[in-house]
């Protein structure tokens, strides 16, 4: 293309563009005039002349601004144009003021919506604040009382949801007291008791991670941290939602030091919390599963750092309805009695098998019954925390001899409750529970049994987030002894004497 031809074409195109702009500008100026004949909309100024309609002046002229009340009044001659203008001016002034306020509110809303608290990223609540009165029939040493007041739990909870990939973070703090844990000395047989160690404030801390959104809910998420064991029902029920005041025997039972029969002393059959990594999901919309690995040394190990033993665990839960189920749980692995924070696990192979069920009636609303049955074998040389042991018993005069076989333990309970939802006794809930713990199935004369009669009144009951209540429990306790041929006195044994407990609780989040 020659330079002359290119210049001519450029000039032509520029001309067309200028002509188009000119036409558009002319159209935009002339357009409104042709579409909106009559006076322009009246603003606050009153100097614009406008026809003043009058009832006696021929046909009615439509006033400007549509058909609002003042327009009709003007149309009917009730108000003058000056008054109409004044009304309109005030309206516009107040409208501008409203717009300004709305803008300010919108601005504030935009700012506050960024707060993590309002985006579900950070939340906090009161998991449970419990004031407990207890009376026990068992005798107590001089200087202690059979009647006690205490703060049972003072737990603050923090949690949030970062995204669909990180659907939950969670931290539970216990402010009731800083417990002191004890560990089993690994050597030095002269040390009869363990070294006191301050536990941490936190009870639970975990992160949920959902790596594949499209796999949920079949493979829903991975949970890692310290949390309530997904074993059975009671262990996984928050302290603020439990139907009875005392913990069941499957968590811990007995007191004092153990012996070689495995029937005596404190026994931690199932610890409530530990370090876990597990995967959770739901199949067929009816079958939930959990499978993971844990330290098997209780959550105190966070302070002591003794994380040697490891166990695999899994639970499958089959739902009969949305709120009724039956589950099977198992734990398989190793236990260790060195640096342990769990009483009576021994050293070696360790297992637990559990069955649990819950039936929540839809025929009788408010009625629920649940039960758990657990059995498991501990490693050999089981010992209580603070007793010298490192595999074998290091001081046989204290622990009763080395080579004690691991005990096979068994426990079960059934609990039923009925929430009265109307009438004079509305919000009252009677509860009954029976449980049994056999420290060693091969030994006689060592059975623990307990029957609990309870009555709960709910001030607020919107579980799982809100539950304020007062609970009255009477416990009929019985303990046969510490095995055959072992001298035993029930006088000071709290597990052999009845107890009465009253607990006032607030839970709000």
């Amino acid at each position: 293309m020659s330079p002359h031809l290119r210049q001519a074409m450029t000039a032509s195109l520029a001309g067309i563009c200028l002509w188009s702009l000119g036409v558009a500008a002319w159209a935009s100026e002339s357009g409104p005039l042709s579409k909106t004949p009559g006076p322009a909309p009246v603003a606050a100024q009153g100097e614009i002349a406008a026809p003043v309609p009058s009832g006696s002046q021929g046909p009615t002229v439509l006033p400007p601004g549509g058909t609002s009340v003042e327009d009709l009044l003007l149309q009917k001659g009730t108000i003058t144009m000056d008054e109409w203008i004044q009304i309109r001016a005030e309206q516009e002034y107040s409208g501008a003021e409203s717009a300004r306020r709305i803008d300010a509110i919108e601005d504030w809303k935009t700012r506050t919506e960024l707060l993590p608290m309002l985006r579900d990223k950070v939340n906090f609540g009161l998991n449970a604040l419990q004031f407990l009165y207890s009376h026990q029939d068992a005798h107590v040493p001089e200087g202690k009382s059979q009647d006690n007041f205490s703060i049972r739990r003072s737990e603050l909870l923090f949690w949030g949801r970062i995204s669909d990939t990180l659907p939950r973070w969670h931290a539970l703090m216990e402010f009731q007291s800083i417990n002191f844990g004890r560990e089993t000395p690994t050597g030095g047989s002269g040390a009869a008791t363990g070294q006191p160690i301050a536990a941490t404030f936190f009870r639970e801390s975990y992160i949920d991670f959902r790596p594949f959104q499209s796999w949920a809910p079949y493979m829903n998420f991975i949970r890692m941290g310290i949390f309530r064991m997904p074993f059975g029902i009671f262990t996984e029920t928050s302290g603020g939602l439990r139907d009875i005041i005392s913990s069941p025997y499957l968590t811990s039972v007995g007191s004092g030091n153990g012996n070689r029969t495995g029937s005596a002393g404190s026994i931690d059959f199932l610890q409530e919390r530990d370090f876990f990594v597990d995967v959770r999901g739901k199949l067929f919309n009816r079958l939930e599963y959990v499978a993971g690995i844990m330290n098997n040394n209780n959550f105190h190990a966070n302070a002591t750092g003794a994380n040697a033993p490891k166990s695999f665990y899994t639970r499958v839960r089959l739902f009969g309805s949305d709120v009724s189920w039956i589950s099977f749980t198992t734990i398989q692995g190793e236990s260790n009695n060195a640096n342990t924070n769990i009483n009576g696990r021994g050293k070696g192979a360790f297992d637990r098998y559990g069955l649990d069920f819950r039936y929540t009636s839809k025929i009788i609303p408010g009625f629920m019954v649940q039960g758990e049955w657990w059995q498991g074998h501990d490693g050999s040389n089981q010992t209580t925390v603070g007793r010298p042991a490192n595999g074998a018993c290091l001081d046989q005069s204290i622990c009763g001899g080395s080579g004690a076989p691991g005990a096979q333990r068994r426990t079960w309970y059934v609990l039923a409750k009925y929430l009265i939802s109307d009438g004079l006794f509305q919000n009252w809930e009677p509860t009954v529970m029976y449980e049994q713990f056999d420290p060693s199935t091969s030994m006689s004369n060592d059975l623990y049994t307990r029957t609990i009669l309870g009555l709960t009144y709910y001030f607020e009951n919107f579980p799982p987030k809100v539950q304020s209540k007062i609970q009255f429990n009477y416990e009929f306790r019985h303990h046969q002894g510490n095995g055959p041929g072992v001298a035993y006195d029930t006088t000071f044994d709290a597990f052999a004497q009845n107890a009465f407990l009253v607990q006032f609780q607030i839970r709000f989040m």
Partner: protein
Amino acid sequence: MTRHCGSVILVIGLALAACGPTQIFPGAMMDGVETNFDFTAWRTVPNAQTDRKVQLGGRIVQSNREQGAHVIIVTQLPIVEQPAYGPKDIGRRSGEFAVVYPGALDPKWLAPGHRLVVIGTTGQAKAVMVDDVQRSLPSLTARCVHIWRTAGREISDFPHNAGGGYEPLEEETHCAS
């Protein structure tokens, strides 16, 4: 070898069945139901799309009892499959609609915040009072409703609740006779 093949096929079959879509309403009730109904268009011009069998999900705002039927005001939410089947709040504001359920329901299922999926037939816009304000909302007459008692939370938050414990989510399907 044949036994191994059979086992593999069984496992694959079970896995496929386990991961299949969730069905909350009886199959017969779902015949002819539009599961991808355009709520926005319906909300804009409610009376233009009457007598259509649709499925919608949302969150209960309030409910009233009127002439033997429950009128449930629902904020529309999209129904998702992941992470849990049901209406999910995705953060965007959507509109409300009215569900007329011609039957009896226990009030515990109608508390504000519960999630709901409904199948029913669209009707004329209905005048209702929402928070003491008279509004005209698109309405449908329900054949079946499925309600999750979430009380404002997401369905996927259950059963592992905020307290760190285990709380199964109550859910039920109700069909008008």
